[in-house]
């Protein structure tokens, strides 16, 4: 990445500048907003890079400008390139990349809503994060108070794209759904049975999380990170801690890194197992779901045995993990893992024994690999449609650099293969945990506590069970944070759902939705 950056510096002489980088894996450079589109194009086409995320920061009081950050990565290169563009408060706009890169559509609009910076040239510049009933506020600006009281909610006024054509109807669903799931609004345009298109309205569970991070001491903020998305507590908690550790040059002991790896994989297993069961339920295969439910229960019981919490909460901390494991705990892990492996084999055999299940899942909810790539889809949904990304392999953290594992990738792009990716991954995870446990090194389980230096920026990246989780922090004096950006993989993947449901019958929507199983809270924060 350094060579790529050097090449850019040479091609844009005097217009780009290398900034201080604290880690070899994070290269920072500044650029002029006027060059943004050209530099991005060069990175994507000439250098084969991928735009990972886009976000902003209010530095007006300190440095007289807002900053936009563009994070890039490249296959086979563990370093990220982070380009920073200053935006003057008097001219609060930046050129949009969304026409060429539809994947940043929502993220750029988030910057508009949170910071009041206009994404000039955006094809659909309407509000996305702040609902239409919100007053004209920009909550992530420093002059907006966390506890500001806004006028009462008076109902959503969003106008959906109209449906045109004879026999075409709109079917609005939500925000409260029929099942036990998170709230969000789906607006289907249907022609009889087939879905013509789907419009989404998220951010119903927006909780002011990123703003709140700026008001909590870091040791408390770890718990906030665990509450970003309940089924990914450990992954988000770890991503956050990794960002802090990198910012403060904290060396996490090897034992702690191995323990984290094991827990991250347990999080993947319990969620994948539940999803396989849920996909089965949505096509009426209840026996498989019952089996998956019991199996998931064994995994979360093991979680509790290892961490005191069924959902792995209150375990990760800056510097490692909060408690070491006793021999009894390690033995329970080993025995339970054997049982889980056996039970999982049965579950897979059961699911595969049913031809009718296969028929319902095959070619359902198809996402073409070209579309997946163009939309910037990540994680399970991406890997089932040919997008070969996995931060565990591409940007190793915890103890992944010491483990052998396979990243399953298919190009079939249907519900069946999103399930198959999960099946393969659970098997890999079981193998990884076994190997990690067999080589669990001696030593401390956390680094000694230390003060976190102020003014440092760093990324924390974890391949959660859903996909790539990114945290970016800037530290503040007194063990606090100036900014914490969170990107859950769900943010990338909603467009995949929209794409995959097209031309499917509305009755298949639940199973297609389940096959992505995106986090509303992770999206909305």
């Amino acid at each position, binding site marked *: 990445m350094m060579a790529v950056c050097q090449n850019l510096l040479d091609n844009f002489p005097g217009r780009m500048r290398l900034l201080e980088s604290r880690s070899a894996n994070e290269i920072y450079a500044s650029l002029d907003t006027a060059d943004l589109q050209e530099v991005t194009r060069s990175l994507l086409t000439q250098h084969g890079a991928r735009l990972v995320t886009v976000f902003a920061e209010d530095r007006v009081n300190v440095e007289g400008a807002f900053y936009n950050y563009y994070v890039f990565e490249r296959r086979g290169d563990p370093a990220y390139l982070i380009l920073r563009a200053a935006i003057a408060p008097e001219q609060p706009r930046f050129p949009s990349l969304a026409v060429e890169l539809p994947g940043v559509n929502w993220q750029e609009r988030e910057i508009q809503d949170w910071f009041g910076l206009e994404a000039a040239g955006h094809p659909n510049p309407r509000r996305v994060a702040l609902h239409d009933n919100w007053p004209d506020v920009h909550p992530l600006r420093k002059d907006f108070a966390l506890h500001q009281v806004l006028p009462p909610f008076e109902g959503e006024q969003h106008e959906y794209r109209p449906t045109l054509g004879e026999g075409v109807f709109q079917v609005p669903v939500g925000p409260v759904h029929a099942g*036990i799931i998170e709230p969000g609004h789906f607006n289907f345009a249907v022609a009889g049975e087939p879905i013509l298109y789907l419009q989404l309205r998220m951010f119903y569970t927006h909780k002011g999380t990123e703003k709140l991070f700026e008001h909590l001491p870091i040791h408390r903020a770890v718990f906030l990170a665990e*509450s970003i998305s309940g089924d990914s507590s450990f992954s988000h908690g770890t991503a956050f801690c990794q960002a802090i550790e990198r910012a403060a040059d904290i060396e996490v002991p090897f034992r702690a890194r191995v323990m984290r790896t094991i827990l991250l994989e347990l999080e993947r297993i319990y969620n994948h197992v539940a999803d396989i069961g849920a996909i089965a339920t949505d096509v009426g295969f209840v026996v498989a779901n019952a089996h998956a439910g019991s199996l998931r229960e064994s995994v979360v019981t093991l979680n509790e045995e290892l961490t005191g919490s069924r959902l792995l909460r209150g375990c990760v901390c800056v510097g490692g993990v909060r408690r070491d494991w006793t021999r009894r705990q390690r033995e329970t892990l080993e025995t339970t893992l054997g049982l889980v492996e056996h039970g999982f084999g049965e579950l897979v055999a059961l699911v595969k024994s049913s031809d009718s299940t296969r028929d319902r899942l095959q070619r359902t909810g198809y996402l073409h690999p070209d579309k997946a790539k163009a939309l910037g889809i990540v994680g399970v949904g991406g890997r089932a449609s040919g997008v070969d990304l996995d931060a565990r392999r591409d940007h190793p953290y915890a103890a992944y650099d010491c483990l052998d594992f396979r990243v399953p990738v298919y190009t079939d792009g249907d519900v069946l293969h999103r399930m198959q990716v999960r099946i393969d991954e659970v098997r890999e995870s079981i193998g990884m945990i076994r190997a990690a446990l067999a080589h669990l090194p001696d030593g401390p389980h956390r680094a000694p506590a230390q003060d976190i230096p102020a003014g440092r920026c760093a990324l924390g990246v974890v391949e959660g069970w859903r996909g790539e989780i990114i945290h970016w922090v800037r530290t503040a004096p007194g063990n606090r944070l100036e900014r914490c950006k969170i990107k859950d993989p769900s943010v990338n993947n909603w467009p995949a759902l929209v794409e995959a449901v097209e031309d499917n019958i509305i009755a298949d929507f639940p199973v297609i939705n389940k096959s992505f199983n995106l986090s509303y809270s992770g999206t909305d924060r």
Partner: protein
Amino acid sequence: MFKILQKALTTGVVTAPYPRVPARLSESFRGKPEFDLARWKDARPAADVCPTEAITLVEGEAARRVTIDYGRCVFCGQCAEVSSDGAVRVTREFEMATRDRRDLIRTAEYALNPDGSHRALTSASTVDRARAAEASGRELREKIRSTLGRSLAIREVDAGSCNGCELEIIALNNPVHDIERFGIHFVASPRHADMLLVTGPVTRNMEMALRKTYQATPEPRVVVAVGTCGISGGIFGVNYATRGGVDQVIPVDVFIPGCPPRPEALLHGILLAVDRISSAR
């Protein structure tokens, strides 16, 4: 097909017998932190480390008032870790559901030494233990049958949660917790519901949807606030985007602490709420 039948027939009973017998908890499970107020030498380290301000201090003239709010606690156990006098202990108690929000709050007042540590406990609130009494599964089933005919219908409403509580509510339906054995089931519409099970914190964007759902639920309706965030807003508290606990928006009958509450804790709270139905009629 044969394999499926075989699987269905060969799997033994996996359902846990709670609440007929106590829940099987792992040794590491972190439940309610207990405070031996008389022995507690210093509340400051615990208040400092508590992630959700469940422990708060008001400092006075050589005196300190300590408030412990289990409705804000996320059961992290750090208060016990940092209290070197051993007066704070993590227990495995989880049956903490209550009808009265005030039951979750304890207060203590201390006279202080010059260094700020506790010299003597001068007063402390008491807890009403009688409320903790709970019905056995069989009694409960009968209670539900007698008050509601055959069953209890629950509508779950996520008013802004992180989805952790939903995972445990979903787990109530798996074969291990099998809530249907009590004649309790989850329904798709508030119009068919006897009870709303609501998670929080209630966000600004869900406030109206929650009110509407409440209004659509026929009376007598019971509202159960689930989890730390549903009770108090939890770590999110009240901010520009959240209203805090469910009771800030609609009346709540039962509060179930936990982050998230384990399935047995949810069951316990739902049972407590059912009792309420019979006494209201």
